[in-house]
């Protein structure tokens, strides 16, 4: 990581450590809003990282932003940070105007709205934080194809809902609502890039939660005593610790390699491999952590569930694993190379981060 990034990561982690505790997460899970935390992120310029300065951003690149997202996942920060920053990242990516206010997105292709004469119609379920945000960035189908649109949420009918972790996931309905901005038609390549970026943000959040679950679990094995000694002294518990450490280390390494790949445009299947692998990681990590924490981990008293419930939700929000296994299988089938050649091929340029003019 760059020195600059180390610094940003340090600042954000300090902010989160100080401001986010179990009570705050609980409160927001009850449907409240955390204005102080949001304002702090905004005042520090964190909500405009990875947006170019000419568009009002604070600079930094996508790796910086993804590392902040990772930390918000690690602390279960109950604010729409990913939503606002990624919505803006997409607006800039598709040559639209970035916005300063709270924003969210819905990007699942099966939930695209209909666009006719600049008016948006349709219904989307499971839209994150819609009730608390002002703008929605979403996909819309016109007679020409699929576009990215930005629309003011004050025109929407919103039905409140939540995911397994109590995070706001609302139903948003538009009847001939007026869009604020509409992108040019998105090519299949560009759609794939948006999917890739979206998944990278999900991976960042999940990496943070996995890291935290590992910390909580290791800590617990040191504190909890049974049969007269801390439970980490038992070999069978040690096996759990090692398995957990292994999966966590793999998640962290995969995340670092994904961000690196996005920056260097080196390989665009890294996100696919990581997402496929995260399926196994999440299953292992949540199972082990709960087993080691035993009864207390199944209660609301302990904070473990704030992270395991988020993982169980986040893994299904966004692009499904089957999309990525299909992609890899297709690449393998179509590639004339051996598997080894395919895996080690390089300088495959990806259009990922180029803002097209």
């Amino acid at each position, binding site marked *: 990581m760059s020195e600059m990034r180390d610094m940003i990561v340090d600042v954000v982690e300090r902010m989160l450590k100080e401001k986010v505790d179990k009570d705050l997460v609980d409160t927001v899970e009850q449907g409240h809003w955390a204005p102080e935390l949001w304002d702090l992120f905004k005042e520090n310029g964190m909500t405009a990282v990875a947006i170019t300065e000419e568009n009002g951003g604070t600079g930094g690149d996508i790796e910086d932003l993804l590392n902040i997202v990772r930390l918000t996942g690690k602390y279960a920060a109950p604010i729409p940070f990913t939503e606002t920053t990624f919505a803006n990242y997409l607006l800039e990516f598709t040559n639209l105007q970035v916005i300063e206010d709270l924003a969210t997105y819905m990007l699942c292709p099966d939930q695209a709205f209909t666009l006719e004469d600049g008016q948006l119609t349709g219904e989307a379920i499971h839209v994150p934080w819609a009730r608390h945000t002002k703008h929605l960035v979403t996909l819309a189908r016109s007679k020409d194809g699929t576009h990215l649109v930005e629309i003011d949420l004050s025109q929407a009918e919103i039905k409140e809902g939540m995911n397994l972790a109590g995070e706001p996931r609302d139903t948003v309905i538009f009847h001939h609502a007026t869009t604020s901005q509409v992108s040019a038609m998105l090519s299949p390549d560009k759609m794939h890039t948006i999917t890739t970026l979206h998944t990278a943000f999900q991976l960042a959040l999940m990496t943070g939660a996995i890291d935290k679950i590992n910390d909580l679990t290791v800590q617990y094995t040191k504190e909890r005593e049974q049969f007269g000694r801390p439970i980490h002294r038992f070999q069978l518990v040690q096996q759990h610790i090692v398995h957990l450490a292994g999966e966590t280390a793999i998640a962290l390494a995969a995340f670092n390699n994904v961000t690196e790949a996005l920056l260097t445009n080196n390989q665009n299947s890294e996100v696919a491999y990581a997402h*496929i692998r995260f399926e196994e990681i999440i299953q292992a990590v949540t199972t082990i952590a709960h087993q080691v924490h035993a009864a207390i981990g199944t209660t609301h008293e302990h904070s473990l569930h704030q992270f395991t419930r988020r993982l169980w939700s986040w893994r299904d929000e966004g692009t499904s694993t089957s999309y990525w296994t299909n992609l890899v299988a297709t690449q393998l089938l179509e590639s004339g190379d051996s598997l080894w050649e395919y895996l080690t091929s390089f300088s495959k340029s990806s259009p990922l981060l180029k803002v097209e003019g």
Partner: protein
Amino acid sequence: MFHLPTVQFTQEQEQFRLDVRTFLQNELAKGTFTSKCDSWLSGDDPEFSKLIGQKGWIGLTWPKKYGGQERSTIDRYILTEEFLAIGAPVAAHWFADRQTGPLLLRYGTEEQREYFLPKIVKGECYFGIGLSEPNSGSDLASVSTRAEKVEGGWIVNGQKIWTSNAHLCHYMVTLVRTSPFDGKSKHAGLSQLIVDLQAEGVTVVPIKFLTGEHHYNEVFFENVFVPDNMVVGEIGNGWAQGLAELAFERSGPERILSTFPLIDELIQELKRQNNFEGLKQASKVVARLWSLRNMSIGVAQLLESGNGEDVSIPAALVKALGTKFEQSIPEITRLIVQTYPTLDAHRKIDRFMAESILHAPGFTIRGGTSEVLYGVVAKGVIAQ
């Protein structure tokens, strides 16, 4: 948690990879060798080792004055991957290249380096690693082979077991007890000696592997004289020296790719069958391989930067995870495609399956059993 660095290969490194690959593909086409699974352990071919030596591909990272190329650990990583991916017979020189060279560079005398390293680099001098003994297994502190001081050297008596390729090797770096066993300090009094395997009093007895191949050996020492100049490092420091060797041994690509030729052939077979469902299942294998490789390269990068960071814990973790992965490959393969595992099959996938099934139980044992590695990792994680 462990924060392993990421590595982006440079243009030169990518070119090097292609050069190595082209050479190996040409030699394979000429019939110089036959691909096999687990080739780093059971693919012995001294002629091939000499050929590799001529290319300058043994001791790649070592100083030029001993015949090395002074290239980076990452270059060596690339080279190693290419050998394993194609299943080239590199076992003869493997242990000298991986362990003995680095050991001598770190602890050896100038005389030892000048004598051994240039020979190793040419692919003409092979080393065995003399650690395990009957009943010692992973508990190396229990070794009882002893060396007694005499005029001008040491007299060795005892027995080693599970020594890879001892029947082909010229020498063995042997861990011996140079002072009496002290129950309170089990790691003290151990030393490393270079034993000439042709010396009087040395007997090498084969142990046959599940495939029927001769790979492991028992080595007996009966009053074997080892001159003073064949002591590696300090007398009594053998334990610490041995531990340093392990980081190099543990986390390399050979802990992930032993069964790679089988995965490669599995994908080929699925492509021939146009089996999309099978390829979807195989994509999980690709994802696992990718994630482990990232970690393994990360450890290699830490070894390269050598800024004193302790890599023994992530290295142990990579070994435990990597060997479990390579061990899983034949089981995954047989659930995706129909195979008839046979050692002398003419269909490659059947032969690779047979080699993988019969070698797989050893992956999680050799170089430290998973259980011992788990102990190392658990202690390290708890101490963090």
